[in-house]
């Protein structure tokens, strides 16, 4: 194999190694064949043109051509001529595929099937990277730049699916990069036939260089260190796509961290902001006016907002009990990927797999620990959805404060400012009963009070996102629902947030529910009646919203006093779809406001103290040498340890720090002379120190060290004053004496190692001895 082909092979193989993290985002290994084929085809094309002696331009052209042909063969959609020649239609087909791929990336959670848009985008990306990689490694002989292509290749799967790509996937790309570097260097050096090894020997090209062991050791150590660093440093493990498109980091959301499931809040905001909504499910039901489909219930309120409690203690599905008029709904799942099943009202029975699915006892959420909706194509749910009249609700007693429901659902972080607002609101409204309080909050959040629906929220600078919302009065269902539930909790009313889907659009007996129908609302606990739904969000902002008969939709309410029973039996109304903002960044900002979510900025700014600590540690790293050096100085000059020798050690190190060259063979006098020659002002101090150490070492009487710290200080100030600024900072931040010390210790360690190896009973593979070694002149 000639050198060019060998290098091409190394480039292709190293790139293939870097592709391994893709295993995390695709199902099975079906993706590997086309992707590796792409790498191989491009490498072959490049290599052939190269061996024909053509320049880099033609090589690149050939590789681009190979890429196009292969892509046309695989993704022509019937538009190509003779299967391999793309037509304009082919390119528009590709554009469609790209759009489809982007949608898939946003909606689907890994692992995904290797097909369609995602596979197209992957192959296209791999192809482009392969061309660049080949160019850097073989064509331009700049293998260091190949690090960029490898990094790109590594980052894409890792940022798309951080959870699916575990940290150890880093090893192969790192090794691949080292391989590329080493191979190129070897090629460069081997051109001369024999390699020089530093110890005066020449080694034949087929024998390992004695230096290679050091290089291998260094490579292994650095890869290991990086891995340890990766494992130790707390990171925001959410992917780029999540952060940018959904403004969400899944640091702690229960149910968010597992494969194949989504954080409800992230799913909500992500779905509402899709540029082109997709249908997620179709429902047929005998309920004439279905209301909301409930998926998650966020009943745990912490500093970071409402979260669902973890779905890990599920009860069997047959523990469900309905009452009253039972409706039956047939649900056909299209795109839903979640570990909860959407159900209407109060489910009485669900025909999901008993082994996989269960009921969360506190919230009645139909959830699964291991399975997800992905595996469910269809299910039937029987449910009741009772209507309440305002009078019944108004008559409900307050929940006993010692009941489990009360404790669980009124727990909230202490935000004095919010307590003030709620107290004032309740006093003004004269609200005493649960229903009065609920209506007061609903009224407070109504457009009449200045609240407007907006998918863009702004940061008003408050510590708590809820206060931002109450200040700016702009937000969407997340903010509305969370604020209402939180305010009710402040007013000692058990309340929680439900996340799910609105009823969707009706046509020919089928309710079609799209990604725009994701919604959040509030459940309030009425003693004796159970959990009653309320929706504080203005109906104008909710796609296919429903007005609950027992509480008029706030945007329509004018008088809070008679709102309670004013509009019983009002039919659900269908409203316009939400306006969809286009800029994902705005979403990222918006989501950050909301309790229950966190973004990268939110994490560093707020609760995550480990991250701060890590940052601090990271910032402290450059100062470690300086701190070490000054600790060393203090220890040497401390009265307990001080003698002429320690003061002299410090003197020598100071000289080295300030760039004065000293030899180990210098006597104290010669050292002092060297110092005085470099910095004439330092003569006095350095001579005093030298004389002290002379007496200490060589005189039978020893030396008096009392005045030495002053002399050392004097010397340091003098050296500092006379040094150039660059040297001065270097002496403080990165003292050369420390580096010299390390080098010396390393030298000693390697000497010891050599000695140990010499003693070792097993033979060493080496060029320095043995009959097989090729040494000496070529």
């Amino acid at each position: 194999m000639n050198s060019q082909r060998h290098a091409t092979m190394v480039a292709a193989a190293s790139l293939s190694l870097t592709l391994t993290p893709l295993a995390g985002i695709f199902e099975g290994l079906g993706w590997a064949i086309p992707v590796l084929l792409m790498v191989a085809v491009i490498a072959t094309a490049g290599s052939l043109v190269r061996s024909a002696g053509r320049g880099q331009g033609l090589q690149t052209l050939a590789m681009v051509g190979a890429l196009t042909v292969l892509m046309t063969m695989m993704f022509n959609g019937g538009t190509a001529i003779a299967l391999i020649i793309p037509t304009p239609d082919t390119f528009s087909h590709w554009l469609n595929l790209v759009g489809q791929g982007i949608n898939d990336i946003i909606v689907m959670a890994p692992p995904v099937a290797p097909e369609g848009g995602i596979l197209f985008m992957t192959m296209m990306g791999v192809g482009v990277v392969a061309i660049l990689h080949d160019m850097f490694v073989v064509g331009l002989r700049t293998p260091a730049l190949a690090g960029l292509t490898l990094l790109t290749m590594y980052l894409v799967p890792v940022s798309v699916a951080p959870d699916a790509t575990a940290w150890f996937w880093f090893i192969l790309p790192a090794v691949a990069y080292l391989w590329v570097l080493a191979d190129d260097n070897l090629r460069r050096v081997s051109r001369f036939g024999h390699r020089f090894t530093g110890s005066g020997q020449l080694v034949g090209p087929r024998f390992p260089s004695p230096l290679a062991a050091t290089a291998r050791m260094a490579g292994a150590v650095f890869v290991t260190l990086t891995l340890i660093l990766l494992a130790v440093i707390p990171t925001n493990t959410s992917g780029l796509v999540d952060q940018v498109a959904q403004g969400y980091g899944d640091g702690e959301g229960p149910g968010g961290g597992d494969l194949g499931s989504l954080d409800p809040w992230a799913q909500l905001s992500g779905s509402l902001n899709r540029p082109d909504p997709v249908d997620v499910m179709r429902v047929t039901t005998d309920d004439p006016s279905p209301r909301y489909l409930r998926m998650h219930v966020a009943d745990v309120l912490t500093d970071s907002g409402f979260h669902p409690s973890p779905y890990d203690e599920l009860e069997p599905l047959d523990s469900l009990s309905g009452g009253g008029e039972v409706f039956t709904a047939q649900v056909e799942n299209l795109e839903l990927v979640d570990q909860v099943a959407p159900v209407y009202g109060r489910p009485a029975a669900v025909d999901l797999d008993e082994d996989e699915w269960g009921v969360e006892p506190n919230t009645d959420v139909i959830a699964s620990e291991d399975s997800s909706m992905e595996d469910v194509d269809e299910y039937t749910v029987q449910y009741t959805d009772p209507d309440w009249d305002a009078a019944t609700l108004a008559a409900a007693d307050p929940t006993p404060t010692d009941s489990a429901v009360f404790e669980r659902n009124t727990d909230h972080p202490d935000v004095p400012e919010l307590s003030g607002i709620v107290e004032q609101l309740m006093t003004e409204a004269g609200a005493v009963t649960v229903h009065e309080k609920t209506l007061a909050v609903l009224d407070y959040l109504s457009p009449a009070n200045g609240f407007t629906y907006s998918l863009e929220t702004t940061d008003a600078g408050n510590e708590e996102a809820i206060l931002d919302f109450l200040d700016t009065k702009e937000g969407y269902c997340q903010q509305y629902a969370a604020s209402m539930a939180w305010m009710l909790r402040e007013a000692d009313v058990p309340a929680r947030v439900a996340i799910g889907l609105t009823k969707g659009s009706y046509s020919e007996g089928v309710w079609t529910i799209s990604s725009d129908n994701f919604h959040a609302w509030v459940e309030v606990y009425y003693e004796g009646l159970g959990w009653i739904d309320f929706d504080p969000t203005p109906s104008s902002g909710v796609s296919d919203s429903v007005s609950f008969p027992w509480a008029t939709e706030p945007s329509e309410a004018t008088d809070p006093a008679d709102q309670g029973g004013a509009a019983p039996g009002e039919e659900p109304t269908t409203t316009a779809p939400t306006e969809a903002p286009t800029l994902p960044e705005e979403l990222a900002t918006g989501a950050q406001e909301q309790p229950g979510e966190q973004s990268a900025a939110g994490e560093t700014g707020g609760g995550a103290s480990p991250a701060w600590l890590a940052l601090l540690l990271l910032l402290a790293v450059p100062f470690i040498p300086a701190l070490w050096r000054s600790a060393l100085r203090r220890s040497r000059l401390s009265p307990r340890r001080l003698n002429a020798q320690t003061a002299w050690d410090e003197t020598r190190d100071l000289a080295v720090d300030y760039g004065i060259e000293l030899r180990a063979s210098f006597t104290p006098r010669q050292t002092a002379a060297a110092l005085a020659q470099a910095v004439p002002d330092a003569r006095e101090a350095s001579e005093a120190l030298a004389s002290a150490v002379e007496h200490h070492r060589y005189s039978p009487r020893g030396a008096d060290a009392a005045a030495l710290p002053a002399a050392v200080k004097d010397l340091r100030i003098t050296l500092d004053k006379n040094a150039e600024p660059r040297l001065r900072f270097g002496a403080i931040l990165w003292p050369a004496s420390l580096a010299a010390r390390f080098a010396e210790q390393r030298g000693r360690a390697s000497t010891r190692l050599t000695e140990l190896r010499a003693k070792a009973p097993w033979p060493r593979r080496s060029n320095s001895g043995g009959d097989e070694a090729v040494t000496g002149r070529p």
Partner: protein
Amino acid sequence: MAFESSPARPVQQQPPSPLSPQEFKATAEAILTNVEWVIEGKSHTIRLALAVMLAEGHLLLEDVPGVGKTQLAKALARSVDCSVRRIQFTPDLLPSDVTGVSIFDPEKRDFVFKPGAVFGNLILGDEINRASPKTQAALLECMEERQVTIDGNTYKLRSPFMVIATQNPVEMEGTYPLPEAQRDRFTARLAIGYPDVNAELAMLDHRGEFNPLEALKPVCDGETITRMIATARAVHLAPELKRYAVDIVAATRTTAQVRLGASPRATLQLLRCARVLAAMDGRDFALPDDVQQLAVPVLAHRLIPTTETTMGGGDTGSIVADIMRHVPVVSQPGRY
């Protein structure tokens, strides 16, 4: 110069009382100033020569003719009130000319010992490499033993006793080079070297009128020298310094450029001279600086370079200087 015929003195029973460091320094300075009056601009060489003398060593001056080898020896001898003998070595010089001979005295009807040239305090052996090996051996034996045995009688040599031998490096014809075993007996080998321009000008001025050597007055006597030698012996040698000296000498044995390194005797003499230099500096402890000044003069003439080194133009002096640049002053790692 009188050829004195006094027999060896009886051995001194009383150990000489040492001088204080200040006295030592002052005396040494006086001798140096005196000698420097004759040999201009060579204070370092003179200092080393005096150090060798006070270390009870012998000096080999190897230099071209006319640079003042003999002047140096004479000036040193005159500054000290002691006897100087000069032996001009020639191929026909006999051992008895050096050590002395028993002659039959008809009046006394007995053999009378006529002491040879070695019975002086300071022996100046000119062109020592011109004498036959057996004559060289006779002198060199005296140097080491400090006594002469003739016809069964042992005669102790004077104290202080010092041989200053000179040899010309360029004149190779008709010479018997000193074997290494005999070179090893010389404590130090010094080259005087040409004076610099100013020193040479000053010399012309002085020598134009009179010979300064004639006007030289002794500044101390043999007694004082003995006391100085005793003083120098008491100078403290720290363990670290001994280690340093051993490291240096050991390095001459391991370096690849040398066929034969320095002997343990070299280590001994190196430190003995270092003591004197320390005392001349007014110290009662020796420093590595003292050792460093002495390493080349004391060690270089003992080494035998490899043929490659010789052909490469290297000399043993530069080998030792190179070793000095690499041997750490403190052998403990991490310390300086």
